[in-house]
């Protein structure tokens, strides 16, 4: 692709096109997300909303690959089309420009053994244009065949579909780079992500954000058992997720004292389950306080002892908000693949100990009985109130994914 041809991108969206009277909310959110994604790019740009499309016009020198990469992270887009934006100077001139465009784009693909096939697909939004869509299709097709006799028309499965949109200006494009799909973040409410330093939770957050959900996150810090670097790693992960999900409020809660008390007063093989129950409770409180409507975890059935179905019963029962577990039925490898694709994997595998692993028992329970767990949790009755209060006191919010740095 000859990238230097383009100064305009058409951003296409699908799902949000069908949201009836709420449609403008979705479109506004998408425009907002695009703006945010491009916020610190060099050069100025214009965004324009028209029904079904967003036009992005770059005003100065810009980095094509960077724009495409950033737009590729905006949920709600299904495709990004680098587009020629032409002034209407009559059909003759348009034909000339299309021929030249074709040469630039496909000059080196027309000499293969099999002829390159194409189809013109015109759309006339401006009804006073002298030719209708059918005529534009036929006439531009003809012009191209004359200029490049080695081409063939294929109206069913063309190699190249040349789109021509007649609006106030004329837009020509033939390549659509895939967008991530989903819904624009900000249209789906807010959720609280339990973020550890592992592979699964960032992926879970990313998946929920993809449905238009704004994320907040909570990380349970356990100094001196976990290091400054472990926290930095989580901030880095949140930052990567925020490239898709927009700014994230990352709550850092000091969990050490609660963890040590559980260790001291509860059976060791139930430590992880009881610990997770308190994490859920804390996360839910933070969620409710910040207006979030659900919790998100990276749990996947059977992956570790605390994620068997029986364990999930035990950790689930302490909250009333829905707990979303988008990777629940994913194999580890599937999760790893997503994390590699979205760019969190390299950071996730850095070897800093997180709070879930420090006191883990050699043989943790895999089929906890909720009644037993509850009973043992009562061992904490006398101390847990003040400890929870103290933990909330330590809540430190790091705003991730904004230009604060």
């Amino acid at each position: 692709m000859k990238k230097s041809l383009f100064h305009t991108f058409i951003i296409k969206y699908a799902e949000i096109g069908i949201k009836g009277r709420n449609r403008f909310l979705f479109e506004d959110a998408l425009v907002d997300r695009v703006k945010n994604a491009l916020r610190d790019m060099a050069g100025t740009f214009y965004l324009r909303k028209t029904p079904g499309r967003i036009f992005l016009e770059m005003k100065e020198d810009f980095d094509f690959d960077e724009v495409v990469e950033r737009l590729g992270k905006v949920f709600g887009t299904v495709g990004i089309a680098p587009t020629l934006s032409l002034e209407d100077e009559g059909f003759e001139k348009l034909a000339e420009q299309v021929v030249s465009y074709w040469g630039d784009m496909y000059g080196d693909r027309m000499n293969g053994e099999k002829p390159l096939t194409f189809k013109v697909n015109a759309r006339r939004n401006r009804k006073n244009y002298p030719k209708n869509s059918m005529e534009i299709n036929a006439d531009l097709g003809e012009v191209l065949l004359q200029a490049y006799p080695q081409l063939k028309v294929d109206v069913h499965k063309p190699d190249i579909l040349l789109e021509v949109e007649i609006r106030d200006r004329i837009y020509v494009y033939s390549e659509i780079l895939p967008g991530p799909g989903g819904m624009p973040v900000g249209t789906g409410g807010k959720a609280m992500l339990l973020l550890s330093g592992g592979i699964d939770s960032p992926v879970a957050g990313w998946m929920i954000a993809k449905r238009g959900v704004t994320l907040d996150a909570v990380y349970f810090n356990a100094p001196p058992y976990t290091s400054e670097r472990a926290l930095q790693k989580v901030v880095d992960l949140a930052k990567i997720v925020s490239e898709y999900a927009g700014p994230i409020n990352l709550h850092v809660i000091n969990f050490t004292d609660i963890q040590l008390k559980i260790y001291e007063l509860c059976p060791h093989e139930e430590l992880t389950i009881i610990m997770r129950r308190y994490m859920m409770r804390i996360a839910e409180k933070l969620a409710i306080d910040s207006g979030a409507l659900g919790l998100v975890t990276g749990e996947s059935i059977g992956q570790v002892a605390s994620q068997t179905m029986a364990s999930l019963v035990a950790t689930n029962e302490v909250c009333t908000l829905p707990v979303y577990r988008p990777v629940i039925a994913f194999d580890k490898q599937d999760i790893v693949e997503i994390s590699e694709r979205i760019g969190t994997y390299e950071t996730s595998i850095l070897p800093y100990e997180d709070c879930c692993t420090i006191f883990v028992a050699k043989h943790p329970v895999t089929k906890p009985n909720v009644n037993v767990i509850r009973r043992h949790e009562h061992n904490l009755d006398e101390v847990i109130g003040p400890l929870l209060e103290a933990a909330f006191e330590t809540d430190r919010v790091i705003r991730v994914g904004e230009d604060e740095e």
Partner: protein
Amino acid sequence: MTEIYLDNSATTMVAPQVADRMHEVMTSYYGNPSSMHSKGVEAERLIREASRTLAGILKCNEKQIIYTAGGTGADNLAILGAARAKARSGKHLITTKIEHPAVLQSMKCLEDEGFTVTCLDVDACGHISLDALSEAITPETTLVSIMHTNNEIGALQDLSAIGELIKSRNPQTLFHVDAVQGFGKTVILPKRLHIDLLSASGHKIHGPKGVGFLYVGEGVRLLPISYGGGQQGGIQNGTENVPGIVGMAMAAGLLYEHLEEDTERLYDLKVRLIRGVADLTGVHVNGLIPVGERSLPEDRCVTVRDEKLTVLGTAPHVISVSFAGVRSEVLLHTLEEDGIYVSAGSACSTHKKATSATLTAIGLNESLAESTLRFSTSVYTTPEEIDATINAIRTKLPVLQRYTRN
């Protein structure tokens, strides 16, 4: 919170007067020593002065100093450069199991090139056996590399005996000493110790990072390991790091000015720290030497778990202590909360285990190795700082020992 920096074997604070001098060199004497004009001549003169300082300390000729980009660079150049230059007369090399990775990885690189490497064991004090060394040396042996001061436990080798032994077994064998931890802490006279190559680093002696030097004995031939404009006799190419070199030499000069009294002071601190924690449950002190039947000054002896040990014959500034039942990382971060900075003897987490080669080599079991801290002092360390550290350990260790992973 005041800072108590006890990680001087990792790196040191640059001495303020050294930083000032370097600033002056960077902003006023910024010429390229290879330039023909007076700015170049000026810079070249500064390097020569630095070399004179270092040569004075080592009692060698100033031309025998080659500047490198640090201790690692000096070790790499010494080992790769010397072994390759002598490859025709033999391809056998000897080193020890407790060397710094800069040495061990260079050896590994040569193994891939077809060299054979003998890696000597050490005893519980970190000393190699002279008999084993003697046995290992063959007519094919071209290079022996043994460190001066071990960076983890502070073991010192008997370099004088080692040098003599090497030359008596095979006069053609070169003797390299990695003195990154020893230079600036003891008087080292390469010629007297039969040392042919000696590496040192700027940032371990209150000088800057990114600069080190290699002493190269008379008649020792090296092949370059990097290529460029032919600086430093074509052995170490690239424009010299003039401010770094000036800073390193100045820092070395400052240390050697008061070396003897500083050494005694550092030994005092070492004894003080060990005595302060020796009676705590689960404490093991690594790298000290059993007193046995010898009669040694009491202020250089400590008693740990009913054994009388001495700090004499060990590095004055490195103190390695294992605290059974507490992972070193946890104790490290706990001390950090009080502004005390130390090193973990062995980096370890559930994701990755990297037990220290040195601690394994001296026979420490894995669990103690993972509970080992290294305290390393400097001439700036005070007795009060040591007392504060002892206090912090005494308060916090018992709490941490209650919560252990099992």
